């Protein structure tokens, strides 16, 4: 009985000691890991910071315009005739309903009118930046 009690005590002490040291070492290790990660994060953030500046530099409107002129020559300056609102697009019409209506693209509009379809109210609403 005494031997057993002794044994239990010794084991308990041993286990406690082991666990304590184990946890201590683990915490130390994890703190080391944390500070390493922190440093890495700061390094990455600095890299991101620099890259943001570079991104902004590479996206200078003047540069984008030059690139667009060189590689997208078909996209010239947007004329007001090219700007339309979704509401102004003609709706698709079901054939069985409106046979007598002209089909899309066949509208024989007078010159100058086809480009400017929006109503007066357009200048009032949706002026979000």
């Amino acid at each position, binding site marked *: 009985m*005494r031997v057993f009690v002794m044994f239990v005590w010794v084991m308990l002490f041993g286990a406690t000691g082991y666990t304590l040291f184990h946890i201590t070492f683990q915490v130390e290790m994890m*703190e080391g890991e944390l500070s390493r990660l922190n440093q890495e994060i700061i390094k990455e953030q600095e890299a991101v910071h620099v890259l943001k*500046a570079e991104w902004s530099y590479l996206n200078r409107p003047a540069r984008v315009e030059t690139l667009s002129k060189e590689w997208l020559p078909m996209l010239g300056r947007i004329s007001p005739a090219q*700007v339309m609102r979704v509401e102004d697009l003609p709706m698709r019409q079901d054939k069985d309903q409106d046979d007598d209506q002209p089909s899309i693209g066949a509208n024989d509009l007078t010159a100058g009118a086809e*480009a400017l*379809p929006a109503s*007066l109210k357009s*200048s009032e609403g949706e*002026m979000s930046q």
Partner: protein
Amino acid sequence: MIALFRKNRRPTPAHPLEARSKTGANDYRGERKPGLKCAPARTDGVFRQAIETGRTRLLITGAVMALAFAAVSGRLVEVAALADPHEPRSVHAVRTTEVQTERAAIVDRNGKLLATSLRTVGLSANLRKLLDPVEAAEKLASVLPELDANRLSAKLSRDANFAWIHRNLTPRQQHQINSLGIPGLEFHDREARVYPQGRLLSHILGYTDVDNRGLSGLERSFDEALRTSDKPLRLSIDLRMQHALHEELKNAIDEFQAVGGAGVIMDVKTGEVAAMVSMPDFDPNHPTADPSAARFNRATLGVYELGSTFKIFNTAMALDAGTVTMAGGYDASEPLKISRYRISDYHAENRWLSVPEIFIHSSNIGSAKMALEVGPAGQKAFMQKMGFLDRLALEIPETGTPQYPKTWRPINTMTISFGHGISVTPLHLASGVASMLNGGHQVTPTLMKRYAPVKGPQIIKREVSDAVRKLMRLNTLEGSGKNAAVPGYLVGGKTGTAEKVGASGGYKRKALISSFVAAFPMTDPRYVVYAVLDEPKGTKATFGYATGGWVAAPLVGRVIERIAPMAGISPVNPQDPDIRHALAIMPPKSEQKRLASFTATMTAAIGTE
């Protein structure tokens, strides 16, 4: 421990502690008694007492020790497992999402980066530790070709402790210098202010010195705020609009060989400056590379006589004062003579002109008469209300103070009616026009993003504001502003051409300040666009003209064409009856005889009759 002690002693029967044995202590004693020479009863009592005392003491000691151990273990468990650590932990997780810099960034209204600080490395020398300055200078110059070896060695040979060699090294240069192995060189972590957009916003942002102190522009006025804040400074500027204005202004200056120019795009409802350009400009990354004249901000610091664009204010003033109505007019058949001055028209019509005609033909005679009816005092009060007599209130330190006559005589009133004799900054004019168009509320310009429209005090009546909108629209349809018309965006504008004051005091015929101010869409104006060119020269394409209508109006038109889609303004059909009705000016019903030509013009122009 006590158990251990007991166990060891058990085999020694003679030991007093044996008495504690459970196996018949009395029997043992009885057997042993004869062996003892001394008196058994007394001895026995003494022993027993001693043993009892010893036991008790041992017990107490043991108990105390056990308690102490228990306390220690309890505390151990508490410290290790239960309690909050009272000491601060040595390592914490980083929480910042942005890099901490000494100076906050500046971004445009959409968050595009305009100015930021980057880590760099500076190189200095500790001259006391430097062994051979000449050799060190030669070695350094081989790595840093921008440094001159002779000048550097002179710098390093001085009798001082410290000398800067280079302030912004690249990592590669740092590595190369490190491998030179020169003792006495020191690296310093520094921050360099970087402007990724280069020249685009030079006068707005300003620049900093080598120690990152703001020297001009917003860098100067927000120096303290940028140092203490982590949050980027958000401007009202829209980078895309800024680029459009910058590019078009630059092209126009090149085309007409102007000495300079300025441009402003302003939100009519909030007073936010969406773009502001002054030419010539400089690169804030290298502020001293350009001549110092390039650092002069023509848009906010330069004051100019801005010419006929002032007729907008003159007409609004007269309509608001009620001295004339839209149907009224003045005789402009003969030049005005007052003392030794003579006021004549550039586009002389030599007849009676109605108020809209005075506006679209830009009649100086008509405007002067209109102003005279209001009177010098009324005009001065109006200009004061407009803010044209006060220094411009803007966030940057480079703001100009208008020049105007000290004694406001009738002749001043007459010249000021068409924009001579009073000098204001281009931004004064742009915000003045914005105030005329937004229903008559005073607009205070700002470079900071505003999140809601700001309604200033009412300067002119709402109806007058409507009339001004119609007049400006009519002017791009029929008058001097035709070159600024953009189909679909309902542009309205006014030209301005002023002669510059020469060195001798008189006006120079050839040196002009040509400008154009426009707003769109005229049914509900959103943006005012103003451009002014300093001393443009006419070209073949403009038939030699260098006036506002020829050089500045097309530029403003192109800018509007580019910025309208950015602002989300969709084009409308100007032939729409609603729009024509909204912007129509009814020709006066009376005085039909004198107005024959006027009616014809109006009918052709707006088609409502």
